[in-house]
């Protein structure tokens, strides 16, 4: 069973789709890709300086993340995980919050009101079913909001993936499952994670469509996810999308990926860079030049630096505050513990 991944833009920047893409739209996506990459590099750098605890770099996967959330409306839910900072940012979750979590500050988990994205999931597998519940609730409440969940190839091995897919199939919830297949789950290659030839074909087990897409092609990802979102919004139920992409760096800043994979593999995928093909296409259309590139980078950089500054300027909280979000109100036992903790921290 082989599903050929959908592609619109070759690594060489050749557009193979039927209709010519809208240049302004592509420029907007390109801007997002540039900002995504800058953030990723910045975060890795901050980690090396000890200013973040650990960081899970996503370089190489920007097209999947930018393309995935482009079709979402603000009212739609995003339920993603630790490697999906770019997707979360472009769904409205501020860089500042993403940085705070990585700094080890729970306040990062509190995005502004109106941002419908859960804090990034740290456990693998557990969050997909949340997107089923969210989407289901939206339908019960009479809205047309959908939920998109992003997860890795490794996450598909967890039992919770299966239960989420099955519930979505049975109740036809407006949920889009996006598997960001980056080839590896820490040191485990995709080929050993499961014996199915593709992840997309797993949808067969749940009675709804599964599609594969070139995850380094932002236009293709956007198109495929947009269709899935439209199906969900239209009451036609869930879709599984497998985006084939690659993690260029280690699993996290604490991981040495040379222990388990060869440099050639990384090089192959560098050649399929998700930014470069868009740049080439825009260049071919006369819609890219170095000045614009610099402008993009400067603007993104300013936003990111501002977020870093804001995150780092937050004053650390007191011992007592670690109690305050355990329940809506402090319980009697916690009131006692809180005052002891405050006393001890003097």
């Amino acid at each position, binding site marked *: 069973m082989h599903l050929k991944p959908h592609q619109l833009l070759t690594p060489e920047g050749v557009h193979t789709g039927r209709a010519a893409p809208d240049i302004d739209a592509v420029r907007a996506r390109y801007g997002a890709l540039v900002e995504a990459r800058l953030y990723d590099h910045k975060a890795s750098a901050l980690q090396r300086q000890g200013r973040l605890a650990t960081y899970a770099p996503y370089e190489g996967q920007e097209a999947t993340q930018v393309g995935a959330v482009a079709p979402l409306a603000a009212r739609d839910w995003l339920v993603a995980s630790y490697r999906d900072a770019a997707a979360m940012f472009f769904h409205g979750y501020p860089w500042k919050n993403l940085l705070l979590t990585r700094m080890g500050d729970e306040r990062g988990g509190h995005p502004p009101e109106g941002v419908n994205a859960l804090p990034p999931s740290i456990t693998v597998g557990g969050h997909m*079913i949340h997107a089923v519940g969210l989407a289901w609730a939206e339908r019960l409440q009479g809205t047309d909001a959908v939920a998109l969940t992003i997860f890795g190839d490794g996450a598909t091995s967890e039992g919770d993936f299966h239960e989420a897919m099955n519930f979505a199939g049975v109740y036809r919830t407006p949920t889009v499952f996006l598997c960001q297949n980056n080839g590896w789950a820490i040191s485990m290659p995709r080929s050993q994670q499961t014996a199915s030839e593709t992840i997309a074909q797993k949808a067969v087990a749940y009675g709804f469509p599964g599609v594969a897409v070139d995850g380094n092609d932002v236009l293709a990802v956007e198109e495929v996810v947009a269709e899935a979102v439209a199906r969900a919004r239209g009451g036609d139920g869930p879709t599984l999308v497998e985006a084939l992409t690659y993690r260029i760096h280690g699993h996290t800043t604490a991981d040495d990926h040379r222990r388990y994979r060869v440099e050639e593999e990384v090089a192959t995928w560098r050649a399929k860079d998700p930014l470069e093909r868009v740049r080439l296409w825009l260049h071919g259309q006369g819609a890219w030049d170095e000045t614009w590139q610099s402008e993009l980078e400067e603007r993104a950089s300013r936003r990111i630096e501002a977020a870093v500054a804001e995150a780092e300027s937050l004053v650390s909280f007191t011992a007592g505050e670690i109690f305050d*979000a*355990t329940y809506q109100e402090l319980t009697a036992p*916690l009131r006692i513990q809180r005052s002891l903790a405050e006393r001890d921290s003097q």
Partner: protein
Amino acid sequence: MSVLTMAQALNSALDVALSDPRVVVMGEDIGTTGGVFRITDGLAEKHGTERVIDTPVAESGIVGAAFGMAVAGMRPVVEIQFMGFSYPAYDQVINHVARIRNRSRHRFTAPMVIRLPYGAGIGAAEHHSESTEAVYAHIPGLKVVVASTPENAKGLLLAAVDDPDPVIFMEPIRLYRAARGEVPGGRHTTPIGSAEVDRTGSDVSLVSYGAMMRETREAADRLAEDGVSAEIIDLRTLVPLDADTIVASVVRTGRAVIVHEAPLTAGYGAEIVALIQERALYSLRAPVQRVTGWDTVVPLRLAERHYMPSVARIVSAARQTLEG
């Protein structure tokens, strides 16, 4: 007021809860058949199968989906068929349900109720007799409530649905039909976090909850026959624990017996003993006794009686505190 069994009282609570459109009730076989214990009888007909939802056999999926619903503003009430089948959902409960408020610093919350029929004494098959409240009580972010009468079953369940935080709601299977009593109609609530002095007494404090309240009361009766005045405390809520009520009682009586059917080691009784000795050591006239299930798997029908704390064991533990 009408006289109801605990099963009927719970059914009435869910019926009242469902008048709030945010409430959905979900679980295995709870719709068409009204649940293995018929607690949800008639609710699907009345409130519709969109809100009284039969689910696939997948506990983690049920809890995880309910979690998502709760985050989106609903108030799901989940039924897990037996407490012994709640473990596949443990990860969802611990790592998500209990934590989303803290993880998001109040931005997202999971106000939901997980109903767990629990307890032994009915000669059931393996896994159908669990009483593992301790493994939930230890987890920050959860509240843990145990009903013991038809009246508080209704009152606590409605309070649990109203609660802004997730509640593990334990229902003593053994009392579903055996316990009958007056239950207020309509929206009756019992506060979460407060223990009840079920009977006042001066010689020894008997502390229990849920199904074991029955044996505890019988033990108090027997003790009374011999002139021993036992005070009974029904915890009703395990987390947050109403320590003041327990401590006040033990300070007066100087003696205490904790009764639960869960295994001894690291059971919730240990927490109550620890609390008493922390806050009332100098009032204690004898070691606090724990009368509990043993550290074994609950036996099947044939030997179950050897496992369950008996009235005789409670009485003899109380006597020991009086001699000690």
